[in-house]
C-alpha cells in the first residue's frame, strides 16, 4: 500500500473522519451542487458572500474519502478569501492533483498531491471545488 499512503495522507483521513464546516448554511446567499455521476458522489456548497469576500461556507454531500476530505479542506482554505483568491487557490489545487507537484507556500492542499497517480480520482478531489466555484459565479440568491 505504498502509493496509497501517498493518496490517503493523514490530513485526508482526518478531514474524512471529522469534516469541517459540514451542514447547511441558513444564511447562505449562494448555493451550488455538483455530482460525479459515474461515482454517485455529490456535494452541495452553501456560502455567504459579503461583497467580494467569502464570509461563511459550508458543504453537504456523500462520497469517497477523497471527495469528502477535499470538500472539507476546501471550506477551511477559502473561508475569508476573496473570489479572486479562491479561484487562484483552485487553480493551484488543480495543478497539484494533476501534476503531483505542490508549490512550497501551499501547505495543507499539498496532501492531495498523491491523487495525480490515480487519474480516475481527480474528479473526486475537485468535486467540492467545482461546486464552490459554481456558487461563487452564480447570481445572488435571496
Amino acid at each position: 500500500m505504498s502509493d496509497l499512503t501517498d493518496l490517503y495522507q493523514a490530513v485526508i483521513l482526518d478531514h474524512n473522519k471529522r469534516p469541517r464546516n459540514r451542514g447547511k448554511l441558513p444564511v447562505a446567499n449562494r448555493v451550488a451542487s455538483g455530482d460525479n455521476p459515474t461515482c454517485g458522489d455529490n456535494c452541495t456548497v452553501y456560502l455567504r458572500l459579503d461583497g467580494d469576500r467569502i464570509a461563511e461556507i459550508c458543504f453537504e454531500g456523500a462520497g469517497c474519502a477523497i471527495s469528502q476530505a477535499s470538500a472539507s479542506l476546501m471550506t477551511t482554505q477559502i473561508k475569508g478569501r476573496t473570489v479572486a483568491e479562491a479561484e487562484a487557490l483552485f487553480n493551484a489545487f488543480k495543478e497539484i492533483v494533476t501534476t503531483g507537484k505542490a508549490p512550497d507556500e501551499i501547505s495543507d492542499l499539498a496532501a492531495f498531491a498523491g491523487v495525480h497517480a490515480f487519474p480516475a480520482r481527480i474528479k473526486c478531489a475537485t468535486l467540492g471545488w467545482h461546486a464552490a466555484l459554481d456558487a461563487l459565479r452564480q447570481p445572488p440568491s435571496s
Partner: protein
Amino acid sequence: MSLLSPALRFDFPALDQHVGGKPLVYLDNGATTQKPRSVIDALARFYERNNSNVHRGLHALSMRATDGFEAARARAAKFINAADSAEIVFTRGTTESVNLVAQSWGSANLRPGDIVLITEMEHHSNLVPWQQITRQTGATLKYVPVAGADAEHGLDLDALEKLLTPQVKLFAFTHLSNTLGILNDAARLCAKARAVGALTLIDAAQSIGHEPIDVQAIGCDFLAYSGHKMAGPTGIGVLYGKRALLDDMPPYQTGGGMISTVDWFESKWKPAPERFEAGTPNVADAIALHAAFDYLDGIGRPAISDHDHALAAQACTALSELPGIRILGPKTGKPRAGLVSFAFAAAHAHDIVTFADQDGIALRGGHHCNQPLMKKLGLPSTTRASFYVYNTPEEIAVLAASLRKILKFFA
C-alpha cells in the same frame, strides 16, 4: 454445488499477470469477463485468413466470411434454443438490443393508455430506453417494486399481480440483477405476462454466460445480451426475437444490407434478421462469439452456474463477518447468483476499490447503472465482487483479508 477445475484459469491469458505486485484477482466479471485463448485466436484467425465483407460477395474470402458469420448466428440460436436462426439479430450488445426493441417495436405498437412495465431493479440500459419510448408515444411506464431488505430485495410479486393489467403491452425485466445478485424466475414472470397478453423482454446481460437459458422453455418474446459478459469480445451482442414479431417490426437503422430494393423515394426491407442489421456487421466479433459459445458449452452451463453460485455463497459467508457490512439481496445462506454487492458505513466503495486494487483485486464500486434503485435503498454506492469460471475460493480469502485491512485503515 461443486466448483470447476482451477485449471480453467490457464485458458485466460489476461489472468496470468500481477497488479500492484500481486497476482491479479479479477472479480469484476459483472462489468465484463475475461476471454479464453480460443476466442482471441478465433478473432486473429479470421483477420489472418478469411477477412472479407459478408453477404454481397461471391469470391472465396467473402463466402468464407459469410459462412462464418451465418454459422455464428446458427450457433447463437442453438445456445439459447431458439427455434430458428432468423430469430437472432446481431447488435453491439444488450443496450443496443433493448433500444432496437423499444424504438422499432415500441414506435409501431405503443399508444397513449398502453403500459410498459419494468422493474425497479433494472440496469439503466433496460430502463432509460423505456422512459424514452413511452414519452415519445404517450404510453405509461410503470415499475414492479423491489421489496425491502427483510424480503431480500426480491421483486414484489403481489404488486406484480396488480400491475399486470390488459393495458400492459410489454413487460421487460432483468434475468439476473447486476446489483442484487437475484436470479428472477423468468419462465414464471413470462407466464404471468402472457396471461394478460403482454409481450416480454428479458435482459439477460448478467445471466447469459452464467445460467442455462432456453428461450422456448422460458417463453419470452425478446431476449437481449452482450457477448463481452460471456467470454466473448466487445462490440457484439444479440437480440433474440420471435420470428413473427421481428418480421412485423419496422427497421431500426437503415442502409446497406437490410434493404430489398431502394428507389429514390421509397425502399423495401429484407425480412428479419437482415432487416435489423444495417451496414457492415461486426463480422469478426460475431465469429469470435461463436468460439465463446463453444467454450462455455464445453464446460457446461449448469456446471458454470453451480460454480458461480457456490463462490457467491462462500463470499457472502466470508464477508458477512466483516464489521458494519450491509450485503444486498439474498441473505447469507440463501440461494444467490454469482455476485455480491455490499456497503460499509466506514468506507466508501471507491476507496475500497482503490485499496483492493493495490492488493491485485479488481472490484467495482459505484451505482452499477442502477441509480434509482440505489436511491431507494439509501445507498450512494456499493462495492461489487462478481465471479466467473476461473475464480477460486482462495481468491475469496484474499478479498476478505484485503477488505479487513481496508476497514482497519478507515476505522
